C-alpha cells in the first residue's frame, strides 16, 4: 500500500485534484404507461429534448464553478469515468422542474444521490447539486482523489488491453473497485493507452460540442415553450377560480346550466389542444436539429467503436510480442 501511495504521487499533480466529469444524457423519465402522461403532465417529445438539453446546463454550471477538470456531456454512461453524473427527469412542466441526480466516481463510490427541484429558475436547479458535489469532494483527501484518477485510467487500460492491466485493480463484492498498483511511469504500453485515450477524448469533445450546439439552438425555442407553459398554467388556474366563483347558471338540466357545462368543457379541450399545437411546433422546430445532431454523434461513435476494436487488437498483439521479448 505504501508503494501504491508513492506511485500515486507520480500522477500529475492536480490543483485540488480537479477530476474530469462525464455527464450522461439524462433519462427523460417518460412513463411507459401512456395513460399516465396526461395526469403527470408528461410531454414525451419535450422531455426527450430536455434530456439532451439539460445536461448541458449542468455542464455549464460545473465549468463556470472552476472546480472541475474537463466536463463532458456523453451519449452513454461510462462507469470508468473519473466522476460520472447521471440524471432522470422526474417532473418538467415549463415552470417546475425536478431531476434525480447521481454522481459516482471510478471506484463505484456514490458521491451524491438526490432529487433537485426548482420553481421557475431552471438555470438555478443545479446549484444545490453543485454544492453537494463539492461537499462530497471536500471529504476526500488529495491522495484519494488521485487514486480515483489512477483507477479510472487503469479501468480504461484494462478494457483496452485486459491481459496487461486486468490485475492492477480489483472489483469488490459490493460492486466497487480498488486500485492495487500502477504501472511504471516508463511503461511503453501505458503510453500507448494514454494516446488512445486522448484520441477518444478528442472525439468525446467533438460529441460534447454537438450538445453545446444543440443547447445554443434550443435555448430560445425552449424559453418560448416555458413562457407559454407559464401562461397556460396561469390561464388554467384563473379558469378554475372563475368557475368556483361563478354564480349559479340556472337549475340543473336547464339550457343555461347545460350550455355553461358544455362551454367550460369546450374551453378546457380547446386550451389543451392549443397546447398540443405548441408541442408540435416545438418538435417541428427542434426535430431536424436533433436528427442532424444524432446522426453526427452516431457517426462519431461508430468511428470510436471501430477504432476501439482495432486498438484493442493491436495493443493486445503488441503486449504479446513485448512479453515474449522479455
Amino acid at each position, binding site marked *: 500500500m505504501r508503494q501504491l501511495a508513492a506511485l500515486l504521487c507520480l500522477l500529475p499533480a492536480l490543483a485540488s485534484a480537479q477530476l474530469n466529469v462525464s455527464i450522461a444524457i439524462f433519462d427523460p423519465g417518460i412513463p411507459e404507461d*401512456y*395513460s399516465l402522461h*396526461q395526469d403527470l403532465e408528461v410531454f414525451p417529445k419535450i422531455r426527450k429534448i430536455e434530456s439532451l438539453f439539460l445536461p448541458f446546463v449542468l455542464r455549464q454550471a460545473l465549468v463556470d464553478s472552476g472546480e472541475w477538470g474537463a466536463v463532458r456531456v456523453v451519449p452513454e454512461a461510462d462507469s470508468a469515468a473519473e466522476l460520472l453524473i447521471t440524471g432522470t427527469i422526474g417532473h418538467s412542466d415549463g415552470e417546475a422542474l425536478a431531476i434525480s441526480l447521481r454522481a459516482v466516481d471510478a471506484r463505484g463510490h456514490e458521491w451524491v444521490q438526490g432529487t433537485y427541484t426548482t420553481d421557475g429558475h431552471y438555470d438555478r436547479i443545479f446549484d444545490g447539486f453543485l454544492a453537494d458535489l463539492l461537499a462530497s469532494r471536500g471529504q476526500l483527501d488529495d491522495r484519494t482523489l488521485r487514486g480515483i484518477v489512477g483507477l479510472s485510467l487503469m479501468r480504461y487500460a484494462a478494457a483496452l488491453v485486459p491481459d496487461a492491466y486486468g490485475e492492477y485493480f480489483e472489483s469488490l463484492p459490493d460492486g466497487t473497485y480498488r486500485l492495487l498498483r500502477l504501472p511504471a511511469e516508463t511503461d511503453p504500453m501505458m503510453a500507448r493507452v494514454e494516446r488512445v485515450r486522448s484520441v477518444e477524448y478528442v472525439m468525446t469533445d467533438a460529441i460534447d460540442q454537438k450538445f453545446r450546439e444543440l443547447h445554443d439552438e434550443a435555448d*430560445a*425555442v425552449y424559453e*418560448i*415553450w416555458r413562457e*407559454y407553459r407559464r401562461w397556460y398554467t396561469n390561464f388554467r388556474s384563473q379558469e*378554475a377560480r372563475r*368557475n368556483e366563483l361563478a354564480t349559479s347558471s340556472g*337549475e*340543473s*338540466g*336547464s*339550457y343555461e*346550466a*347545460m*350550455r355553461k*357545462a*358544455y362551454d*367550460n*368543457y*369546450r*374551453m*378546457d*379541450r*380547446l386550451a*389543451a*389542444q392549443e397546447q398540443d*399545437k*405548441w408541442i*408540435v*411546433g*416545438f418538435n*417541428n*422546430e427542434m*426535430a*431536424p436539429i436533433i436528427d442532424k445532431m444524432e446522426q453526427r454523434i452516431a457517426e462519431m461513435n461508430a468511428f470510436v467503436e471501430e477504432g476501439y476494436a482495432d486498438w484493442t487488437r493491436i495493443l493486445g498483439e503488441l503486449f504479446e510480442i513485448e512479453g515474449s521479448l522479455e
Partner: protein
Amino acid sequence: MRALIITLVLPVLAACASKGPVLDTTNPSFEGDMPVNFSGSWERDYARSQDVNGALNAMFQQRQREVMQQQQANSMSRVGPVQSGLSQREVNAMIDLARLIEEITRPEVLTISQDAYEVRIARKDDFAMSCAFYDGVAQGTDSQYGAEVCSWEGDDLVSHLVLPGGLIISRRYTLSPDGNQLREITTAKSSATRSPLVLHRYYFKFEAPARAFNCVETLSMKRVCSTGELNP
C-alpha cells in the same frame, strides 16, 4: 377480419345521486389495427339527415307513449299516482336539451384524420373530438370540466362525454360499406329528461381542395407557410 375484442364493452354510465352521472373511464380496449378508417372530409347530407325538431318530436312521442303505458298500468293495478301527461318542467327540459344539441351539432363539415393511435374529428368553432388508443387501450380525458372516452363497438366508433350537472352526450360513427357515407348518431340526456334525444346525421365524403400553401407550426416563427415542400 381483424380480431376485435372490447374487454370492457362500454363505459358505464352509472347514476350518482349527488354528482350526476359518472363516466367509467376504465379503458375500453381492442386488439390489432383500428377496425375502420374514417379519414377524410365529410359534408352534411341534408337530404338524409334528421333535424333537431324531428328528433325532439320523436323524443316527445316516446315519452308520451311511456306515460300512457304508465297510466294504463297504474289504472289497471290501481297503485301509484295517475299521471295526466308530461309535466311542464319535463317539456321545458326536453326543449332546452334540443336547443343545446342543435347548437353543438351545427358544424356542417367534419374533417377526420386518423393514424394508428388516434381518430381526430375536427369541427369548425368547436374542439376536435379526439379518440386516442395506445396499444389498443382507449385514452380518455378526465377533468373537473368533464370526462370523455371512446370505444370501438364492432366497426362503430363511439364517444361518450359526461359533463357536470348530469349532461351525457354520446356520438356513434358508422361508415357505409362503400366508405362514402358516414352516419353520426348523437344521443343526449340531461338530468331533467327521462328519455334521450337521438339525432341522426349523415355525411358524404368530399375531396377538400388542395391547399395552395404547405404550412408548419413552429414556436419561434408561429405558422410558416410555403408554396413548396416545407422542412421546418
